[in-house]
């Protein structure tokens, strides 16, 4: 089977699964859904692995979608190391999560169950389209579809008002990002008169494509490139829940836990990182936008970590943690350490999905209770899950030998080594964030698993999850433990498989690792680890400063700010529009057309007296008028 067919197959398999489940899923026995749902994802994973081992590289065009004069938009898939890397993450981790949800969602009734897997398969398809697309158009299509799938999945339990509102919020913010993406694509098109990545990137390096409509001459205008980069960054920020378009992510926890694991930890939120990586030729030129990526990432990382300290819902802690870790990824790609950034993407996928799914096990055992204050003492009762949760937690903090250490310290080391102020600044922020990560992770761990069971526990003797839910988690735990060995650059020795693999496609890190960075990295780990332990005893610092506590609990009042500035204004505008424009003018003109006609007709019907002589009178009157006209015409 040729490579181009295989590449297309990666996309078609989840799509076929989604279509089958959408059409027939609820009518077929549940076992069909249970096999097809995860099965197509695993099948796509197998195909991806095949392509990976064959080291396939190619830009495969399947057909031309738009052809208008010299403007062409093909449907093409770009298979290179970066896209295969992302596909592996998506299908691999995605496969584990979808398998997990076979058990997690078992309580749903038939149609709902099938609907869930339909949505999951749609999501996987959309995400794969996003990373495989070879031109801006299909990138944006995938981008938008991913946002749509997210809406479906967050609002899966649509009877819950809070879920529906959260889904809507996520979708609206994603759309803001979509607009940025589209505008960025417009700017790119204006510059290069093409939307395929191959043409655009070639144009960046070698100058404009030789068409008549390349307005700005042979060399692209760097100002416009900056603009495009910033606009694309808006899209990335929205999708990856970075400041300022981050408020949707905590609310998105209304969705089922597998959704949170897949979309809001491992894949969708990493789309922004992928975007910066894919667009690295643009960002290499647009230095200001590139720096902005790093700053946004660093600030978000710190910001989210501080909020995580005061959260009481276990999933919210993980949500803010995700926000923070993605900030690290943005930081990395923002300073040009693409390899480190993507390695963290991989490792984060491992341990965050692990954490979410383990938390899902806990929630499941606790009969859907998510408040950590009502947990306590789970270590004794849910041993397997607790162990795996611990692995994930230590990975998150960045403790050797777990993968989180290698990836996070990889980033911080690169930042520290970068010989300029930007590098040092973001390192500093990242360092503080790592410490705070230790705090909130520790707090989460001790509160839920250690100590005595809380008095408010809903379930006295929780029982472990079934194997279908334990095994995927266990797989991820193993990956989180040994995964670090593929890139041990943070230790100064050993392989750098991820970076080597990706450096063929994205720009390599252009500076040397500072040898001091290693020591700094170990120190970071140590302090963070200590804080993790200390969190057992530590009352949150913020308890001593109630005002700070309040600020953190209200998430720096972002939601309130947006509500006041945007939501209420638009609500009022909509009210005015409805009251003063829609109802009187638009509805009115439509209904009014009817009533006016009837009113006019009621007057016109007065002419129909029914008397013949009246009608003849009208004839004669007409004759008089004609006579007058004739006379006037011939008299002049």
């Amino acid at each position, binding site marked *: 089977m040729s490579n181009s067919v295989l590449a297309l197959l990666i996309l078609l398999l989840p799509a076929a699964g989604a279509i089958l489940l959408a059409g027939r899923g609820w009518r077929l026995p549940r076992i069909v859904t249970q096999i097809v749902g995860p099965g197509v994802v695993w099948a796509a994973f197998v195909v991806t692995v095949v392509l990976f081992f064959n080291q396939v590289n190619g830009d495969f065009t399947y057909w031309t979608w738009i052809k208008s004069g010299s403007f062409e938009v093909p449907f093409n898939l770009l298979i290179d190391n970066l896209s295969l890397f992302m596909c592996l993450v998506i299908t691999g981790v995605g496969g584990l999560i979808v398998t997990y949800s076979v058990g997690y969602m078992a309580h749903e009734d038939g149609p709902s169950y099938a609907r869930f897997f339909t949505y999951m398969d749609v999501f996987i398809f959309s995400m794969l389209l996003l990373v495989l697309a070879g031109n801006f158009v299909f990138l944006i299509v995938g981008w938008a579809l991913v946002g749509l799938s997210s809406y479906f999945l967050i609002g899966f339990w649509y009877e819950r008002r809070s879920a529906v509102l959260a889904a809507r919020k996520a979708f609206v913010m994603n759309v803001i990002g979509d607009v940025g993406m589209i505008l960025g694509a417009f700017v790119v098109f204006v510059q290069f008169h093409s939307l395929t990545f191959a043409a655009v990137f070639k144009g960046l390096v070698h100058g404009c494509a030789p068409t008549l409509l390349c307005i700005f001459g042979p060399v692209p205008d760097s100002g416009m490139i900056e603009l495009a980069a910033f606009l694309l960054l808006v899209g990335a920020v929205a999708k990856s829940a970075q400041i300022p378009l981050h408020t949707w992510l905590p609310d998105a926890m209304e969705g089922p836990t597998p959704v949170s694991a897949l979309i809001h930890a491992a894949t969708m939120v990493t789309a922004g990182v992928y975007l910066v990586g894919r667009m690295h030729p643009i960002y290499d030129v647009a230095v200001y936008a590139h720096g902005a990526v790093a700053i946004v990432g660093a600030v978000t990382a710190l910001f989210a970590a501080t909020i995580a300290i005061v959260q009481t819902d276990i999933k919210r802690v993980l949500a803010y943690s995700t926000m923070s870790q993605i900030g690290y990824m943005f930081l990395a790609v923002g300073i040009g350490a693409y390899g480190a950034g993507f390695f963290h993407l991989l490792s984060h996928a491992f341990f965050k999905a692990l954490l979410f799914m383990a938390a899902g096990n806990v929630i499941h055992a606790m009969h859907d209770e998510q408040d950590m204050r009502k947990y306590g003492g789970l270590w004794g009762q849910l041993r397997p899950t607790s162990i795996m949760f611990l692995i994930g937690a230590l990975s998150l903090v960045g403790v050797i030998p777990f993968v989180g250490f290698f990836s996070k310290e990889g980033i911080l080391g690169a930042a520290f080594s970068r010989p300029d102020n930007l590098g040092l600044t973001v390192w500093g922020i990242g360092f503080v964030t790592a410490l705070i990560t230790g705090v909130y992770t520790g707090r989460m761990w001790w509160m839920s698993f250690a100590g005595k069971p809380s008095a408010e526990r809903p379930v006295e003797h929780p029982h472990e999850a079934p194997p279908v839910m334990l095994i995927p988690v266990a797989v991820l735990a193993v990956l989180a433990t040994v995964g670090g060995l593929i890139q041990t650059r943070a230790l100064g020795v050993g392989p750098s498989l991820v970076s080597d693999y990706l450096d063929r496609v994205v720009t390599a890190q252009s500076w040397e690792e500072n040898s001091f960075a290693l020591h700094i990295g170990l120190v970071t780990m140590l302090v963070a680890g200590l804080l993790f332990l200390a969190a057992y005893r530590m009352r949150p610092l913020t308890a001593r400063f109630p005002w700070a506590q309040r600020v953190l609990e209200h998430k720096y009042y972002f939601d309130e700010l947006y509500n006041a500035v945007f939501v209420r204004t638009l609500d009022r505008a909509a009210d005015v529009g409805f009251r003063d424009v829609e109802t009187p003018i638009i509805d009115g003109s439509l209904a009014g057309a009817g009533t006016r006609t009837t009113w006019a007709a009621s007057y016109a019907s007065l002419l129909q007296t029914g*008397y013949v*002589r*009246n009608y003849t009178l009208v004839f*004669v009157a007409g004759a*008089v008028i004609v*006579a*007058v006209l004739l006379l006037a015409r011939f008299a002049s």
Partner: protein
Amino acid sequence: MAIAVFFVAAAMAIIGGVGVISFRQPIRSVLSLVVVMIALSVLFLLLSAQFVFVVQIIVYAGAVMVLFLFVIALLGPARETGRGRLRFQAGLSGLFVLAFFGLVYAMMQGIQFRQPEKTDLSVFGTVQSIAVGLFTSYLYPFELTSILLLVAAIGAVYLSRRDER
């Protein structure tokens, strides 16, 4: 002499016309119309329309008016009673009619007659000349008119059928 004939015929026509619209009983109205028609046929003769003169008397005065008489005989002598319901009808009618007449009169004042074609007046309006015109240049209208008559006849027969109950 022709002038005298004209004025006598004109006077008869006008008196008859007034009679048509004035009599209460329809039968008298019909007879007035017959008077008008005869006067007009004389005028036609004066205007060298021999064939039309004959046709007017035979067909119009002779057949159509007889038809009217038969219908009046069938329907009985109806009389108009009462004042009538439409209050403004008479006034408005007078207004419009006067306006109309005034306009026509004004039109007549400005009339500029065209030069007549050169024809032989001794054969003008004779049966032969009418026949030539009717069956050659105006054959098409002639045939259509005959179809029209056919349709009218069928219509009349149909409309006056008694429904067998």
